[in-house]
């Protein structure tokens, strides 16, 4: 599904990703861990198509197509979804209006009819109950005045509505209390299938107790320095990152 080969990227002349290789197959859950500044968020931004980053080498293949040729909106149309670490507040655009526009623009791009209002409403209700979201939520301005937990829940709600093939969850656990974490993780797990895949980017093992990864990768200084199974996450939790750093810097 996703094949990243020797990906290098920089921002404002500063090299951040220094040759990433990663392959994700349908049905898999990958976790990317690593200390602050290792390039985790850069990787997710580059996959989603943020323009501030300049890709200086390598490529990203998604279902046989080079993603780097596509704009962020076109990548979304292909089925890529990024759950933002810091979702943007947009006063004046309601959650409903936003989701309706996103779904219908995506359908338009895929050559499909727009979704009838009643079908969309039914779907919204379903997904809202899955994520234990209140009805009043829909008419609020997008992320404006939302608590940290509400923002993250809103991201997963959008993911549930857009039904992506590949979801990247960037630090979705930050700012969540344990109940909210459980609800969000439960939502993600219910949306999982053998046809889609998830990349979980996180600092801590905590989220991975709920969303269990098939593979764990450690990113450090712009490179994946170690890959393993979910046991690697436990090892990191116990030992920290220093033992890996030494290996790289030596």
């Amino acid at each position, binding site marked *: 599904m996703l094949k990243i080969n020797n990906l290098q990227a920089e921002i404002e002349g500063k090299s951040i990703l220094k040759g990433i290789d990663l392959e994700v197959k349908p049905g898999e859950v990958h976790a990317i861990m690593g200390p602050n500044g290792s390039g985790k968020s850069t990787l997710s931004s580059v996959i*989603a*198509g*943020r*323009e*501030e980053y300049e890709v200086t080498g390598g490529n990203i293949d998604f279902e046989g197509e080079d993603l780097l040729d596509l*704009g*962020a*909106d076109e*990548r*979304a*149309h292909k089925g890529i*979804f*990024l759950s*933002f670490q810091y*979702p*943007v507040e*947009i*006063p*004046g*655009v*309601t959650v*409903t*209006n*936003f989701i*309706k*526009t*996103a*779904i219908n*623009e*995506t359908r338009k*791009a895929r050559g499909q009819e727009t979704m009838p209002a009643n079908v969309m409403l039914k779907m919204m209700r379903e997904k809202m109950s899955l994520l234990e979201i209140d009805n009043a939520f829909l008419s609020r*301005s997008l992320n404006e005045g939302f608590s940290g937990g509400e923002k993250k829940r809103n991201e997963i709600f*959008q993911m549930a509505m*857009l039904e992506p093939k590949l979801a990247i969850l960037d630090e979705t656990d930050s700012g969540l209390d344990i109940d909210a974490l459980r609800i969000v993780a439960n939502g993600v797990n219910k949306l999982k299938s053998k046809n889609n895949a998830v990349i979980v980017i996180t600092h801590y093992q905590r989220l991975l107790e709920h969303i269990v990864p098939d593979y764990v990768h450690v990113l450090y200084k712009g490179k994946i320095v170690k890959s393993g199974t979910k046991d690697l996450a436990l090892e990191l939790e116990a030992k920290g990152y220093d033992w890996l750093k030494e290996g790289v810097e030596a």
Partner: protein
Amino acid sequence: MEALKDKLESSFLVLENELNGEAEGEIHGRRREAFKRFVDKGFPTKRDEEWKYTNLKPILKHDYRIFAKDDRTVDFSTIKPFFLNDVDTYKLVFIDGYYSSWLSETTHQGFDICTFSNMLSKYQDVAQQYFAKALPKEESMAAVNTAFAREGAFIRIKKGVTVDKPVEIIFITTDQKVETLAQPRNLVVVEENAEVSILERHQSLSAKPVLTNTATEIFALRDSRLNYYKIQNDAKNASLIDSTSVKQYRGSNVSLGTFSFGNKFIRNNLNFFLEEEHTESHMDGITVIDKDQTVDHHTLADHKVPHCYSDELYKGIYDENAHGVFNGKVMVHPHAQKTNAFQQNNNILLTDKASIDTKPQLEIFADDVQCSHGCTIGQLDEEAMFYLQSRGIPEKEAKALLLYAFANDGLRNVKIPALRKKLNRQIAKKLNVNLDFEL
């Protein structure tokens, strides 16, 4: 400019001759006095403090016809798009300055929705009491309008009446051969505890330059409620100078919205005079313009007495070479304690060539007041753009959605759903997207 001034001078003599006996009356005396002020002062120039950001010269160089002919008809189907349509309304339609009874829907049942000329001939006491009593004497363009004031809308809502449906006033210009100067004159009197909503627009069907120099006087008597909306979306060769003055009396609530999308040039002089205590005034504006369009808003909230509230919100989006002006004056006189006066002007410039001159002007001579103002000039938020695009919304639509979100609180006082819908559609059209903003 001088040529047009000369032409106005000779035209004024023609007008006086046509009036016969009426020329000796007090009403015409007010016209004459206004005209003398115009002759002495001339057209505004960039040397005038109030006109320093906009140049009228290119607008006034045309050889405008002052008196249009009363020989044209227009099919309803031609002007249908300019009406609200989704809702039943009273209609006052003027073709080239002449009232069209065929296209209008008026009434005298319990209130007067009719013409200015009708008011002059039938209700002389009204003319005596209100004509040329609200517009500031120092405004030259308003003075020219007063001098030639003969036709337009007259709306008088009697004490205690709530009008059952909105009133639409539309001025159409049709002449394809000559350049036209149109000078409609409106008078609105909302009596004690009465209520009405009014829409006004000026529409040129001509390919020739049209200058509309319109003036409206509004009197909101005690405890009355008025919503007045101006849709300014005229042809690309049309210019508009609008002088509107509102006098408010105790307990009245007036909301005036100005929505500007079209025209070559627009100047709005909007004055609120708060004559008695406990009034509430709202001024809202949304401007979305591009190409070489100019929209210049000059507003005044004149707090003469204590305990009045005024709130002003103007939003502007300027693309290509468009030029915006916002000059918002709030005057709080020494006796006007406990005044609440708020003003906000927010702008987005979409290109390097678009520009905005914004000047909040607060003159506060009382000490126990709450006044605030703010103005911003910005660009689109890139982070928000990426957020929307990452959800599959293409760049053009994402931009439109953010711009709409930026502008839409300018619609906060639009109480007619059909008008809201029309304005939403208009904003989408102006932003070149096929999006339904409101859900």
